[in-house]
C-alpha cells in the first residue's frame, strides 16, 4: 500500500516539480546571503582578527586605544606594585618574628634521619676487588668527605670536650658556639690513614654513617645512641661480621646539642664507621643499619631513612 502511495505520488510529482522549483528559486536566493552571515568563513575570521589586532580607523590595538592601554597598564603597574609591596611587607614582618639562630618549630625534622658515605647517587655499593676503577670513586668520595675531619683541621678549629655528657653552652643565642673535635683517627681502620682504600681493595669496605643534624636535639636522652646492622631481607649468614668505630658504634653525647650553622660554625657531625669485614661475595646483600636509643624512631614504613638506612653491598672478585 505504501508503495502504491509513492507510485501515485510520483505520477503527480513530475508535473509538480517544475512548479515547485519556480516557487522555491527566489526563496533560495534570499536565503543564501543569510547562511553566509551565520557561518563565518576563515577569511572573515582572519579579517576580524586583523581588525582586532590593529584597527586603523579607531586606532585601537586589541580593542584599546593607546591612551586606554596606557591607563590600564598604569593601573596594573600601580596595583601590582602595591600588592608586591604588601607581600614583601608581610614576609618582612613574618621574618622579623623569627630567630635567626633557631627555627620556630622543629617537629617536622625530628627524630633524626640517617645517611651514609660514600654516597654516589644511590644506595648500592657494588665493586670488584680486582678492578680498582670500580671502587676508586667510593674511596675518593670517602677521602673528600673526611677532609674536614683531618686531625690537624679539628685541632685547629675545635676544642676537646668531656666525653659522656651533653656539651651545653649557655649565653645568648647570638653568641658563637664552640664545636667538639671529631678526629678521623678515631675511625681507626676506617680512617683512611693506615689503609687509604678504606678496605675496598681487600673486599672489606668501610661505610660511614651519620645522623641528621637537628638544632637543640639531644639524642638518646642521656644514653649514647648506638648503631646496629643486619641483613634486611634474605640470608642472615651473608653478613658475618661488622666492626664499628669509634667505640662500639655509638654517637658520643658531647657532640650534642647542635646550635645551628650561624653560631655553631665549625660543627662537624659525629660519625660511626662500619667496617664490613666478612660479607658474602658475589651476592647482593641488602643491609639495614639502624639507630637505637630513646626517642629514636627506626621503623616507620613511610620513611625508610628515619633512624635507619638500607643499602646493598655487592662485592665481587
Amino acid at each position, binding site marked *: 500500500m505504501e508503495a502504491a502511495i509513492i507510485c501515485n505520488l510520483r505520477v503527480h510529482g513530475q508535473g509538480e516539480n517544475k512548479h515547485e522549483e519556480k516557487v522555491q528559486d527566489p526563496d533560495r536566493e534570499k536565503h543564501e546571503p543569510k547562511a553566509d552571515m551565520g557561518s563565518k568563513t576563515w577569511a572573515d575570521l582572519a579579517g576580524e582578527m586583523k581588525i582586532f589586532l590593529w584597527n586603523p580607523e579607531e586606532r585601537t590595538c586589541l580593542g584599546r586605544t593607546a591612551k586606554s592601554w596606557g591607563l590600564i597598564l598604569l593601573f596594573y603597574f600601580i596595583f601590582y606594585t602595591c600588592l608586591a609591596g604588601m607581600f614583601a611587607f608581610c614576609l618582612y614582618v613574618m621574618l622579623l618574628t623569627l630567630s635567626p639562630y633557631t627555627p620556630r618549630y*622543629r617537629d617536622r625534622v625530628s627524630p633524626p634521619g640517617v645517611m651514609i658515605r660514600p654516597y654516589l647517587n644511590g644506595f648500592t655499593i657494588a665493586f670488584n676487588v680486582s678492578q680498582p676503577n670500580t671502587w676508586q670513586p667510593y674511596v675518593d668520595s670517602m677521602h673528600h668527605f673526611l677532609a674536614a675531619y683531618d686531625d690537624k683541621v679539628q685541632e685547629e678549629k675545635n676544642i676537646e670536650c668531656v666525653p659522656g655528657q651533653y656539651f651545653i653552652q649557655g649565653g645568648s643565642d647570638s653568641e658563637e658556639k664552640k664545636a667538639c673535635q671529631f678526629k678521623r683517627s678515631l675511625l681507626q681502620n676506617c680512617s683512611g690513614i693506615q689503609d687509604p682504600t678504606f678496605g675496598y681493595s681487600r673486599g672489606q669496605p668501610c661505610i660511614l654513617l651519620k645522623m641528621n643534624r637537628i638544632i637543640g636535639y639531644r639524642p638518646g636522652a642521656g644514653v649514647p645512641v648506638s648503631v646496629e646492622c643486619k641483613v634486611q631481607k634474605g640470608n642472615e649468614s651473608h653478613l658475618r661480621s661488622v666492626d664499628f668505630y669509634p667505640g662500639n658504634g655509638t654517637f658520643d653525647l658531647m657532640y650534642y646539642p647542635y646550635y645551628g650553622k650561624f653560631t655553631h660554625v665549625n660543627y662537624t657531625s659525629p660519625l660511626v664507621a662500619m667496617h664490613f669485614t666478612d660479607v658474602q661475595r658475589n651476592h647482593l646483600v641488602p643491609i639495614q643499619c639502624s639507630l637505637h636509643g630513646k626517642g629514636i624512631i627506626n621503623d616507620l614504613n613511610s620513611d625508610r631513612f628515619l633512624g635507619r638506612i638500607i643499602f646493598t653491598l655487592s662485592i665481587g672478585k
Partner: protein
Amino acid sequence: MLKRRSDVYSVEIYGTKDLQKTEIEDEEEKHKDQKGNKKKKKAEDLKKELDLDDHRLSTSELEMKYGTSIDKGLSSARAAEILARDGPNALTPPKATPEIVKFLKQMIGGFSILLWIGAGFSWISFGIQLAQGVDSAFDNLYLGVVLALVVILTGIFAYYQEAKSTNIMASFSKMIPQQALVLRDAEKKELPADQLVVGDIVEIKGGDRIPADIRLIFTQGCKVDNSSLTGESEPQSRSCDFTHENPLETRNIAFYSTTCVEGTATGIVINTGDRTIIGRIASLASGVGNEKTPIAIEIEHFVYLVAGVAISIGVLFFIISVSMRYKILDSIIFLIGIIVANVPEGLLATVTVSLSLTAKRMAKKNCLVKNLEAVETLGSTSIICSDKTGTLTQNRMTVAHLWFDNQIYSADTSEDQTTQPFDQSSPTWTALSKIVTLCNRAEFRPGQENLPIMKRVVVGDASETALLKFSEVILGDVMSIRAQNTKVAEIPFNSTNKFQLSIHETDDPQDKRFLLVMKGAPERILERCSTIMINGKEEPLDSEKAEAFQTAYMELGGMGERVLGFCHLYLPENEFPETFQFDTDSMNFPTSNLCFVGLLSMIDPPRSTVPDAVSKCRSAGIKGAVVAVTGDGVNDSPALKKADIGIAMGIAGSDAAKNAADMVLLDDNFASIVTGVEEGRLIFDNLKKTIAYTLTKNIAELCPFLIYIIASIPMPIGTITILFIDLGTDIIPSVALAYEKAESDIMNRRPRNKRRDRLVNQQLAVYSYLQIGIMQSVGAFVTYFTVYAEQGFLPSTLLGVRVNWENNAINDFEDSYGQQWTHYQRMYLQWTGYTAFFVSITIQQVADLIIRKTRRNSIFRQGLFRNKVIWVGIFSQIGIALILTYGLGHVTALNFTPLRFQYWFVAVPFAILIWVYDEIRKLLIRRHPGSWWDKNMYY
C-alpha cells in the same frame, strides 16, 4: 464555480500527498539508518490504518457501531467500561534518547574531555616512570584514577540533575492537561482529554487541539491545521461529507494532535491513544531539534573561553619548561596540573542546580517554565508583545453599556450584580434580549444552580459568557428560553465573517415564522441592515439614524469597550415553511436587509496589579531585540513559536498556544511576566556571580604551578588538593549565590544585549583572574612561605631547590639553619604547605563569596544576612576545610596534614583587603557611572 473549487481541491490533495511522500521518505531514511526491518513494520501499520472505514459510514451506522447516541453521548458507566478496556487516550511516550547515550554525553561533554586528557597523561607518565623504576610512579596512577573518578562523579551528578529537571519539566507539562468538551449522559462536560473513549461525542471549536481521531458529524466552517501530521501548514476545511476513499484525505475525519483553527465541529471519537493515526506513526510525534537557548550559548562560550585559557597556558608552560631543560615527562606532569587548576570542575553542575532552583521558584509564582533555560531568556527580553485580554485585565467580560432606542443605558458592572437597574420597558429591549439570549453558544456547566450567577462556570468564550450571565440576571433561566426556541441552524463566529448567526423556531405557538438572530462587529451588522427598531417599531435606516448609530458606537468604543451589534429578521412564513431545510454552507436564507436592534458594550476591568507591572517594565527598559510574546488564541501560536520566548496563558490559553509557548502563566496575570523578567535577570546576574566566584580561585591554584616551574620552589599546592577545593569547599558557596536576592537596580537596567553583554565578559574574567585571583595567590603564598620559614626553610633558601628537594636519595637536605631533612620529612612539610595553601584559599574564598553578593551595590546595602544560604555556604566551606585538615590529615594519600591553628589566620589580612578593595571598586562605580573605572571594573 464548481470547477474552480475542484481545482483547488485537487491541488490541495496533491499538495498533501507530496508532503506525505517526503514524510514517508524521511521516515524511510531514518529507518534505514536504524534498522531495516522497521520499514516492514511501518508498511503494515499503514495498511492497518487504511482499514479504517468509518468515513464511509452514515451517522446512524456509526451510532450502531460504537453503541453511542449523537444526542446523548455515552453513559458514564459505559465510558468507564471502554476506558478500562482501551486505556487512557494518550500516546505512549516515544522512546527517548537511550539513557546510556545521555550518560556518555555527560562524560565527554564540556570540561570532561580536558580532564580525560589529564587522566590520560597521568597514566602515560605512570607507565613511563614504572618502566624507569621510579618509586613515585604510583602517584601518577592514583592521580589519573582520581581525575577519572572526578569526571565520572560529576558526570553522574550532571546526568542525575538533568534527569531530575527533565522530570520537573514533565510534571509541569502534566499540570496543563488538555481538556475536551464531551457529551455524556446527555450533558456537556469538560473532561481531561485522556479520559476520552471510542464512541464519545466531542465538540471542537477554533483553537482546540483535536483530542482523538474523530469522525465529524456536524461542522460549521471548520478548518484544521494538519501540520503536525502532514507538515502541510495551510489549514484544510473539514465537513461531514465523505469525499475520498483514503481516510487520510477524506474531509470528514479530523486527526488526533492536529489543531482546529476556526469554526466548530462535533464528532464521534473513533480511535484513541496509540490507535490513532499519529499514534501509529509514533516517530512523527517526537519533538524536533531544539535551538540553543541564550544561556546554553553563553555557557558554551564560557567553556570555550576557560578551555582556551587552560590549553594555551598549559602549552605555553609546556614549552617554557621544556626549554628550561625540564624532562618531557615532568613537563607533562606540569601540564596536567595546569589543566586541573584551570578547569572549574564543579561549575557546570552548579549552573544546572541554580537553573532548576529558579524554575522551581518561578513555578511557585505561577510561571510554569516549559524550557528550563528559557528562564534566562526572559531576563534579556527587550520587547514584550502582549494582547491585553486576560493578561492585563481580569478576563471577566461584563456588559457595561447598552444602546437602543437612540439612547445609551448603563449597566451594573459590579462583582455581585443580581438585577439590572436600566429601563427595561421598551419593546426594543424585549427584542434585543431575545437576540442576546438565543444568538449565544455559551452554556452554564451543569450542577451550579445554587451558586450566584456571576460565580458560575461557563463553557464558552469571554464575551459570550458575559452576555449569557447578563441575560440570566435579567431574564432568569436562559437555558429553558433556549429550549423553547429550538435552534434549527447556526453559523458560529469566525474571523472572516465577523458575525454569528442562528435561526430558531419561536416560542410563540401562533407564530410559525422562523427568527433569524445575528450578532457581530457593529459596522458589519449595520451593513446588513436596512431597518432599525425604535421603540419596538421597524423604521427605515436613513443617514440620520446611521449617524446616531455611529455616534453611539464611537462613544462606546472610545471608552475602550468591546461593542457588539445585534439584529434580527423574522423570515416570511411563505418562503420558509416549517419544514424548510436550512443549509449554512450555501446560505439559503437572507443575511441582508435585516433589522438593527441595538448595541451592547462590554469591558474587562484591568487587574489591580497591572499599572505597577507596566511601570516596572518601562523602567526595565523593555523596548528595543529579544522579543517575548504573550498570547492565548490559536492564531497566536505561530507568533509564540517565532518569539524568543513565547508566553501562553494558563487559563484562557488554547492548547495550541500552550504547546507553542516556552512558558505558561498559570494565573494569566501580566504581573507574572514581570516576575519572570526579574527572575530571568536575577538568574543571569547570579550565574555571573557564581562564575566570577569560581574563576577567581583558579588563579590561586594556577600561580603555584607557574611559580613552581619558573622559580623551582617546592610545590605549593597539589593537584588532588585543588580538586578538593573545586569539588569540596567551593560547591555549596557557589550554589548559595543562586539564592542571592536581586540588587536594587535589577529592573532599572537596560535589557541584556545578546552580542555585547556576555555571561562571562572581559571585565569579569580580568577582574577575577588578574585582580582578586592575584590577591588570593599573594595571600596564599604568604602563608606558604610562613609555614616553610617557621620550620627552617627561609624564602631565600627555597628558590631553586626543586631538583634536590624532590630527589628521594638525598636524605640529609640542609635547611636555612643547618638542620638536615630526610626526603619524607620534606614531603610531609610540603603537604603541610599544601594544606596551608588550601586553607588560605578557602579563607580568602569566604571574602570572595561575600564580595560576589553584589556587583554594584555596597554589601552593607544588600545586607550581610539576608541570604542565609550564603552563611550555610561559608560554614560548610570552613567545616569541610576543618574536616580535611584535622580529620583526614593522617591519610597521607590525600596530602593533607594537620595544621597549626595560627596558619588559618595568615591570609585573613588579604581576605579583608579583598573585601575593602571591592567595596572601593563598587563605590567608584556608583559615584562615577560611565567613567573609565566603571567601564573597566564593572562586570
